[in-house]
């Protein structure tokens, strides 16, 4: 059983470490989608929708396509929050976004295959399309969330942004890695 002494020593060392630094793990990396949910919330501070965008409801309507657990997370993130006197409403959307009055429309990676069709389908001139896949901007999306060096980065399709009937703050453009299309 002599071979066990090495590992046992190691186990002991680990045990001691665990005992000495029990709370050391507080500073953890965050879940990608927690951070992405916070991004969605933050975007609403940089976008000014015209008053007619709030004819259906006073709330900022965030629509999530293709990832229901993310919708739940966004709901949790924006619960009770207000931006510019607007509360929030989060909707899970299965297919068409027409007539839903989305202010932000998030198309998940899982829907990337039909995202070109989904993006072409958007009739709402106020809907800020946010995605998370390689071809999202090329397919006509406005803001893409990418992962670089384990951090979330934003890319903006300027041409698509200009076409929207809402104003996007220039600060967002400077923060983003703006891509002209």
């Amino acid at each position, binding site marked *: 059983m002599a*071979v066990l002494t090495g590992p046992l020593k190691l186990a002991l060392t680990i045990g001691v470490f665990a005992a000495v630094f029990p709370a050391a793990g507080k500073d953890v990396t965050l879940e990608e989608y927690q951070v992405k949910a916070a991004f969605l919330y933050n975007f609403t501070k940089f976008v000014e929708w015209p008053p007619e965008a709030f004819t259906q409801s006073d709330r900022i309507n965030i629509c999530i396509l293709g990832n229901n*657990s993310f919708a739940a997370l966004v709901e949790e993130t924006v619960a009770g929050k207000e931006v510019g006197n607007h509360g929030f409403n989060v909707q899970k959307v299965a297919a068409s976004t027409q007539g839903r009055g989305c202010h932000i429309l998030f198309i998940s990676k899982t829907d990337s295959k039909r995202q070109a069709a989904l993006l072409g389908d958007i009739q709402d001139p106020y809907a800020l399309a946010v995605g998370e896949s390689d071809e999202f901007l090329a397919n006509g999306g406005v803001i893409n969330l990418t992962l670089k060096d384990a951090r979330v980065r934003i890319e903006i399709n300027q041409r698509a942004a200009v076409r929207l009937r809402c104003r996007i703050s220039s600060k967002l453009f400077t923060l983003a890695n703006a891509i002209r299309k």
Partner: protein
Amino acid sequence: MPEPKRNAADGQWTKIWRSGKQCGGVIVAILVLATTLRAGGTDPAPDLTQLSLEDLMRVKVTSVSRKAQLLTKAGAAVFVITREDIRRSGMTKLPELLRTVPGVDVARITANSWAVSIRGFNDRYSTKVLVLIDGRTIFTQEFSGVFWDQQTVPLEEIERIEVIRGPGGTVWGANAVNGVINIITMKSQDTKGALVSLGTGSQESAQGYARAGGAIGEKATYRFYGKYFNTESSNWNGGRSAGDGWNGNQFGFRTDWQLSANDVLTVQADAFHSNEGQTLTAVVPKQGFQTLTFGDRIEARTKNVLAKWNHTFANGSESSLNVFYNDAARVDQGSDDQDTADVDFQYHFRSGERQDIVTGFGYRHTKLFYEGYYSYGYNAPSFESNLVNGFIQDEVTLSATLTLTVGTKLERNSFTGFEYEPSAQLVWAPNERQSLWVSAARAIRQPSWFYANSILDAASFPLDGGGLGVFRLLGNSNNQAEKLIDFEIGYRKQIKNRLTLDLTAFRSYYHGIVTSENGAPFFELDPGPPHLVIPSTWENRARARNYGAEAFATWQATRRWRLSPGFSYLQMKVIRDASSTDAGVELVTGSSPKYQARLHSTIDLLGNLEWDSAAYYVSGLTPSIGGIHTDPIGRYTRVDTRLGWRFKEHMEFSLVGQNLLAPRRLEFSRLEQQNATPVQRSITGNVTWRF
């Protein structure tokens, strides 16, 4: 032989989708249950809405918990293990890791050899499962199987492993008969910085892995790595060494280069060297054809280089050119050197609104040199073989909920000439949470040099009237491909983000199964002493009718606790033709378990502690060699557990106990030449730094 597919070694879900399509018509749509699975690990969740956008962009995120939870639209039985699954498995060797995949039958033979199969016919020299690493087939043409000890791809570099149960010949080609195991390593973009991992334990006495990665300018990234391991020999009861200890090292690099907005070039290479022990029981012609049991060495040296060029066209279609060269040299009952060069091209495009087509062609050249030491050799010192293939597969959207995928592979190999491997899959997905699919496919396993050209003195025995008899297995250049016609049905359902179910049933008809048919005995004088040879040649005179079912589920019991049960059932029946004298072929069914079950539990404890456990049940084996039963393997349950602790993001400690229920146990019986050794209870400690 199989061909490598561009297998989207880039960790993007969109790419999984595409590569999935290339996995035998599998359309893989993945529902990412991002936070429900591991939200517990980030307790207490800080209020990120207080952060500015600038701050948010500085926050480091982990995406490791993205779990391929439900492959809703796949028209085949697919299971994916992710980087996080690998990290939490506590496994250190690739074949052991495959144990965690439901429906894969892994039996450890010795510390350095494994029998791995899917849906039966398990053996060290299993021939019916195709295995690829980044699109490079790791088959040896010698016996159409895998030397698992030579596959030491660092588990730390694997992005995911896609396992398809059932045939994948239409896209993957010959030998993808019972399944495909597709191992995909991380892109170098995802391995920037340095990582060092060290471990020690009672069996895995030393393990070290280090890698460094970074960027060259804005367009290219790279990583290089080295690893070393030393595995202790197993012990028999009483402490006698089983002589199967081994060690090895491997080095490699990968670069990914964004040539333009539409072109990516990947170049990667690895070199591996090992020294291994084994115990053989073999007929030794040089010593008067005595059957001797003796300790022997294995030494393996492999090198490979692979280049892949992906191009995306303006209309969204894509092409991929994949080229690899593989050199595998092995000293194991002889000296064996096999070189493989392979070119493969694929083109993926949409036609109209409803059709998604992938087509391609490939060429492979393989050369083998072999010099036998004991009783195993070939009728020529070297062989060459070619494989030319083309395939097309069309995925037709019939309606919003119905998809039909049809296609075929056509190939020409040096052994049996022209072969075809068609398949059809129909998927009905009424919504994203459930799907029902049916499939039918034909697949083939082409002959290997072993079946075509080998000479093996399998047994020697005293004759009744005095004198010596030698039983000799002879290759047959007319050996035909084994063929499978397979029918499957499957159902998947996700219930409220907490529970996913995946059910599959299959019925498989094999024909042309290889048998050994005795010929007329003759006397041989040289080498002496004079002996009577009973020759037996490889023919294709048996068929098999198998059926079975596989079920698995993932249940997020609480925020912090996930349970994944799995179950598989296999009923095999091999029937020899009336013209066959090979009674033994009907007994091969005893080498695969009828029932297998597993239960995985992953728990996120407080303070970044993880406690993961797995139990595996195998219903036992009744193995045989040449029609004679060897020692049976009784049913057994294996229990592994792992305690992991993450210290900030830089360090991780883990303690792993394996085979906890018994001090030692055999998982497989002895083979024709090789003796099996016991698996032992073991403990391993590991520490990983990232910086």
